[in-house]
């Protein structure tokens, strides 16, 4: 068990290191000059050189890389020149709406998705199963931002149930302003959760130990509740852990549609203001979050399911 955890942690650190290096490489290998982009095409060479110096871009590449890694490890990205505040502070001020959106969206996904998946798996090939298959095929092809706009049009503008943009804190404010964004997120995630969970449940319900439970005369309801639910929890967490990168991509779109003041819209503002250091901080943060979430889901999985850590040993 300890070996498995150590192994997983080491791999995660390697990947984190890789993510930091990739961010550095993108900035330095992709043709383009952040100083020129910031100052505009008609900037004088002196102004560009001065900004290069301020950004530390005139130092040798190796030195810049070491400094970059040091800063990344302590999450210190200096001051954002467009927000006139420390970058880490600018970022942390925008995390609350994003975190609430993730939580609310996941809640809807689970409350609706898990029962649907169980229903589809138990009555395989039935009406519900086929209907779910059809709906998931459609929602899979739906651009999340477009679906958000459709919700805004139908439930926001036509039915006047919710405002179509802005964010308010507090329970009432969250329910009012975050329901449409959370529904949009839930639809994007639901497809993946329902499909994967359905197939893993079908596998579980056809397995030997479930047959054994049936042979011992346990009712189908008890079998589904005990085995299917237990496996649903494990399965759903694994699935959500593996699609966290996709989830972040969708978040950026949803925050733009509903004009939420979250980390995703901050990323867009940073690009529009050409604040590449802020972009860099956010890119690193998102990569870190994905790696950490995936590490925790794997560890959780290993604690719950002994087959995983044993497989890790034999590799």
């Amino acid at each position, binding site marked *: 068990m300890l070996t498995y955890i150590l192994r997983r942690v080491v791999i995660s650190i390697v990947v984190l290191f890789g993510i930091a290096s990739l961010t550095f490489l*993108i900035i330095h290998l992709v043709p383009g000059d952040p100083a020129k982009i910031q100052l505009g095409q008609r900037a004088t060479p002196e102004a560009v050189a001065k900004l290069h110096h301020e950004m530390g871009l005139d130092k040798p590449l190796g030195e810049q890389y070491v400094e970059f890694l040091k800063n990344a490890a302590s999450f210190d990205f200096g001051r954002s020149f467009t927000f006139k505040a420390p970058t880490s502070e600018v970022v942390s001020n925008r995390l609350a709406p994003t975190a609430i959106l993730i939580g609310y969206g996941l809640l809807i996904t689970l409350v609706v998705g898990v029962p649907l998946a169980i229903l589809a798996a138990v009555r395989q090939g039935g009406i519900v199963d086929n209907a779910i298959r059809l709906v998931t095929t459609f929602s899979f*092809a739906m651009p999340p931002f477009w679906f958000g706009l459709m919700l805004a049009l139908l439930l926001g503008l036509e039915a006047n149930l919710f405002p179509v943009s802005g964010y308010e804190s507090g329970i009432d404010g969250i329910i009012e302003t975050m329901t449409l964004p959370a529904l949009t997120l839930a639809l994007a995630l639901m497809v993946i959760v329902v499909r994967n969970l359905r197939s893993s449940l079908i596998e579980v319900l056809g397995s030997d130990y479930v047959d054994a439970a049936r042979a011992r005369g346990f009712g189908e309801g008890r079998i589904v509740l005990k085995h299917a639910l237990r496996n649903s929890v494990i399965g759903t967490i694994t699935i959500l852990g593996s699609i966290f*990168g996709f989830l*972040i991509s969708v978040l950026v779109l949803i925050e733009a549609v509903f004009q939420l003041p979250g980390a995703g819209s901050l990323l867009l503002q940073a690009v529009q203001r050409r604040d590449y250091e802020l972009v860099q901080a956010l890119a690193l943060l998102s*990569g870190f979050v994905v790696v950490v979430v995936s590490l925790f889901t794997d560890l959780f999985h290993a604690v719950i399911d002994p087959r995983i850590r044993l497989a890790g040993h034999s590799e």
Partner: protein
Amino acid sequence: MSSAATANGTSLRSSSRARTVLRTAGTLPLGVKIGGLVVAIFALAAIFAPLVAPYGPDQLDLNAIFAAPSSAHWFGTDDTGRDVFSRTLYGLRLDLALALLVTYIPLPLGALAGAVAGFFGGWADTIISRIADVMISFPFIVLIIAIVAIIGPGVEAFLIGVPLAAWALYARLARSRMLVLREQPFMLATAALGYSRRRALFRHAFPNVLRPCLVYSTVDLIGNLLLLAGLSYLGVGIQPPTADLGSIISSGQPYLLTAWWITTLPGLTLVAFGVGVGLVGEGLADRSSEWSAQ
């Protein structure tokens, strides 16, 4: 297809091959047929957009601003009187071409990397797998926006960013497939027959690795199409006034209530096309699992 042809004892004359293709097409599941038809209609309309579209993509008609959908303007017109249907066709044409490019160029490269990792194991496997982990950990949109921050907004960031990360998904898929294949009797036979490792890898294992990658590519294609539309919607992809589905949808957002068609109908077009591709992909996935079960 070719195995069916040889089983019937027919040579590969073009007429008999065409018949075999038709017969194989006849046995395809209904979903694949419907999906294929939808994809074909949209793809043809997009390819021949200059012939099919009733108006030019940038043709202004100041007498028909915000015209509702009608027989003259199937999808209505926008705030400058441009025909939304024509713009949608041109937009689909551009988006589809770019999405195909970033889907099918990384596919063979990723499949090869994954096949090598799975076939040789050891250090090659560790290095390739870790690099793939890094690429997969980066949320696509964030990666591309980071590139936009350096080179400025435009389709270039999409063309650089997607292949940079997309190969990794194919590599992961190909690697896990290769780990299974390596132990198959026909692969063990290549070693017993004294074939070189190179021949075993490229001639015998690689074609079998490509199949699941091709099936998965239908999912990837929709994903890339939606990603490109999303980036253009955010203003960091294809730049207006060039017609593209994301920017058309975005341009309708301020007029959502008064001119719903500008945002709604191009989006529906994208959904319909995506459902078509999805149906084909599902059918192929079902068939592919039948193949590997045999």
